């Protein structure tokens, strides 16, 4: 790590003097292809010190596995079929004997460090922020001159702030007590959890009983700053839990919503519900494959196509099942359990025969990868945020369909009294088909969401079926609002219990909670009261 920092300084200092194209000495490159780790690191540092375009290219290539070497030690930057030789500045077709240079974490760390040092002066604001944040991790007094320099040039207040904190963190180790004290004070405004250990360290004692921080004034300041920081962190922690709970809740909700229709409304104990989720997820996979194959440029948009596709595919599967099998079983709810269990076995095995027993790969589109850091240390990942909003959107749509349309009225009427609905002129067969199709289609949408969080395999549904039933029942069968509240409630309870009890006991506690809760409300959260229930 030491070397890398020195390089950082030198490289940064040289950066504004980016020299004109100068081919890199092959002797400098050769160790990169070698076996000796220390030599490679040294080479990276030397290359970084060049601080020119080629150096940047090479480091970037190294970081993205695009740097190749030939058996004779020639190093090439390979882009598909073309290879750029930094030693000669020539671009040639990739030779057959070129082999990728492997990078391990240590080397990658060095490369990234070098790159972020270079980036601190980049014109791109995002890159600068990232580089400054990166520096926070390694804040070291040796870096202070460099950072001060960057700070001097920096006009963006946000980045200035970060850099100031980096300096302050580094100054905690300053030999001058006043500087240390000032540093501690500066950090009082920080929201970064990472500085906590360093502050805490000031209060620790040496083995001989003396304080590590000799100056009591600094210690008092440290206690105060720690207090501020801890309060902030506690808030962040709380908000984090709330967010995680909502996020888990929205997953549960999406998993359960289709079931709330097929089971809650139609009374079909749909054990194949999980498999419908799975089909939705596999449809997403197929869409992604198609995009990869035919529209690689628009790959990020595959999800938008996957949503309608999954809805249509699962709804179609549902309609087929309903017409072929389930329509004979209305009024015999318990038989539907047996039947859909059989269907679930068949669907699973079908997927296994077509796609194999292994999971398939569904990648988050780039706009759903990563996350946004809020309040200093809380990362909210994009995919979770998207899914929360998606869940709310789907709920709203379902609610509108069921409560504000004539179709919804017919659906509810048929589910309550099939024979009478037919007598007033509702084609019950059609309504059954559409309702089941809708429920299944919504399960398919749930599957799309799940594919963004977990694995996509033939067993996907099995992991969600029990939870889905719990959510629907806890909310009160046939009560959409209940399902929503139950899902978010379970999510929150889970996420607040987990840090206390660990994931396993939290899960057990949740189950016990459900059992106890149902004692209090034997018809679920949103029980109907009165005569109409009988």
């Amino acid at each position, binding site marked *: 790590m030491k070397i890398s920092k020195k390089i950082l300084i030198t490289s940064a200092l040289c950066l504004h003097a980016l020299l004109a194209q100068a081919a890199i000495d092959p002797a400098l490159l050769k160790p990169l292809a070698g076996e000796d780790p220390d030599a490679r690191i040294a080479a990276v540092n030397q290359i970084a010190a060049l601080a020119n375009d080629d150096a940047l290219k090479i480091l970037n290539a190294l970081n993205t*596995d695009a740097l190749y070497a030939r058996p004779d030690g020639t190093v090439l930057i390979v882009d598909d079929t073309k290879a750029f030789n930094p030693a000669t500045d020539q671009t040639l077709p990739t030779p057959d004997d070129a082999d990728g240079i492997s990078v391990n974490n240590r080397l990658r*760390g060095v490369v990234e460090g070098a790159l972020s040092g270079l980036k601190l002066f980049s014109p791109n604001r995002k890159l600068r922020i990232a580089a400054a944040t990166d520096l926070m991790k390694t804040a070291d007094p040796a870096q202070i001159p460099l950072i001060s320099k960057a700070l001097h040039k920096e006009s963006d207040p946000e980045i200035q702030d970060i850099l100031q904190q980096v300096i302050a963190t580094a100054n905690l180790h300053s030999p001058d007590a006043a500087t240390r004290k000032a540093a501690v004070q500066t950090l009082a405004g920080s929201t970064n959890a990472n500085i906590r250990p360093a502050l805490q360290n000031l209060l620790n004692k040496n083995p001989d009983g003396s304080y590590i921080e000799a100056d009591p004034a600094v210690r008092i300041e440290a206690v105060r700053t720690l207090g501020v920081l801890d309060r902030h962190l506690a808030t962040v922690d709380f908000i984090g839990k709330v967010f995680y709970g909502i996020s888990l809740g929205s997953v549960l909700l999406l998993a359960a919503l289709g079931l709330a229709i097929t089971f809650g409304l139609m009374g079909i104990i749909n054990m194949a519900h999980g498999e419908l989720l799975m089909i939705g997820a596999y449809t997403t996979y197929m869409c992604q494959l198609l995009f990869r194959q035919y529209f690689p440029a628009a790959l990020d948009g595959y999800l938008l196509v996957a949503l309608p596709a999954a809805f249509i595919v699962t709804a179609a599967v549902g309609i087929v099942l309903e017409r072929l099998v389930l329509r004979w079983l209305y009024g015999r709810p318990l038989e539907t359990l047996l039947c859909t269990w059989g269907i679930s076995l068949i669907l699973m095995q079908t997927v296994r025969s077509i796609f194999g027993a292994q999971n398939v790969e569904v990648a988050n589109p780039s706009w759903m990868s990563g996350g946004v850091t809020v309040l200093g240390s809380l990362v909210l990942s994009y995919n979770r945020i998207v899914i929360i909003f998606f869940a709310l959107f789907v709920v709203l749509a379902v609610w509108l369909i069921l409560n504000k349309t004539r179709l919804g009225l017919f659906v509810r009427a048929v589910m309550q009294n099939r024979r009478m609905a037919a007598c007033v002129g509702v084609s019950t067969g059609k309504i059954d088909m559409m309702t089941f199709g809708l429920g299944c289609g919504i399960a398919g949408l749930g599957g799309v969401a799940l594919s963004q969080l*977990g694995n996509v395999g033939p067993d996907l549904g099995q*992991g969600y079926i029990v939870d889905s039933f719990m959510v629907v029942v806890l909310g009160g069968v046939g009560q959409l609002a209940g399902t929503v509240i139950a899902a978010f409630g379970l999510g929150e309870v889970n996420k607040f219990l987990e840090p206390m009890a660990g994931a396993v006991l939290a899960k057990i506690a949740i189950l016990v909670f459900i059992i106890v809760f149902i004692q209090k409300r034997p018809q679920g959260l949103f029980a109907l009261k009165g005569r109409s229930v009988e």
Partner: protein
Amino acid sequence: ADTIKIGILHSLSGTMAISETSLKDVALMTIDEINANGGVLGKKLEPVVVDPASNWPLFAEKARQLISQDKVSVVFGCWTSVSRKSVLPVFKELNSLLFYPVQYEGEELEKNVFYTGAAPNQQAIPATEYLMSKEGGGAKRFVLLGTDYVYPRTTNKILRAFLHSKGVKDSDIDEVYTPFGHSDYQTIVANIKKFSAGGKTAVISTINGDSNVPFYKELGNAGLKATDVPVVAFSVGEEELRGVDAKPLVGHLAAWNYFESVKNPVNTAFIKKWKAYALAKNLPNAATVVTNDPMEATYVGIYMWKQAVEKAKSTDTDKVIAAMAGQKFKAPSGYELEMDATNHHLHKPVMIGEIKADGQFNVVNKTKTTIRAQPWSPYIPGNEGKQKL
């Protein structure tokens, strides 16, 4: 009979199918290959495939069926420890042979079983040593993250003892467990992040099966990169990575005794055969099949058994067991593996790989020679001197 029957006892349905199906296919491929080269003792091998459906009592039933109804000479199968524990009494009672191809927690040694996967000292400990080394990032703090069942618990117990012996304090070790099928890692990842503020941290993951994908996805989205907090896993291999978008995982590690990316002629041939077989048999996703450690272990196991049968000139269980001792085989890992003369485990090399964006591994460290298995971990008290049958 003019054929020798071989039982294949891997789940083709249920939760374990995801891992075990390809082992069945590799076994069939190997048998085909042996048959094409004249079989064993002049007889063709005849595979008998059954599906124990990830159901442990069914494993015992199927084992009994294979041995007593189908009269197989040997069985290749099982993945989870509990499935092995479930069939053990049957193999003992009927005195038959099982080859078990998967890494496991050790603490077992049975006359009727040959273990061709890794014992903890052939996987977990070298991996931890690597993480602590300069090359591996010099980790000082460790999160031991696992699914709550026997293998992770035992492995972590061994690891904790090992870490203690290396001077790591309990306050620098965090042991976290999740239930089976856990899929929400938000809290855990947030906690890892918090924990890692206290010094260079590495995660040693014994998360089982399907839970890996959500864990890695969460990790990637939370912005924890391998250069910050490397994760080393003992049950993530090439096959598992087929189902993950590997780009966010680049740099995380796995420890095995074999990687597909190992370069040597035996491996090249092995991979080629496997790809050709997958295409010929029209396996699902045949175009993208990969090889992995348990597949290699299955392959090695079948060949070693063949050699032993030829040496013993019989398929009689006791004779084959005797002949197995010291069998050697040039394995796709590039090493000559040897069946230990006394403890029924293979001497294996240990390799550490970093995940690459294409789902393959970049082997960053491997032992010079093969290592003898210690099924009874010296880190568990009371195990001293318990290395033989």
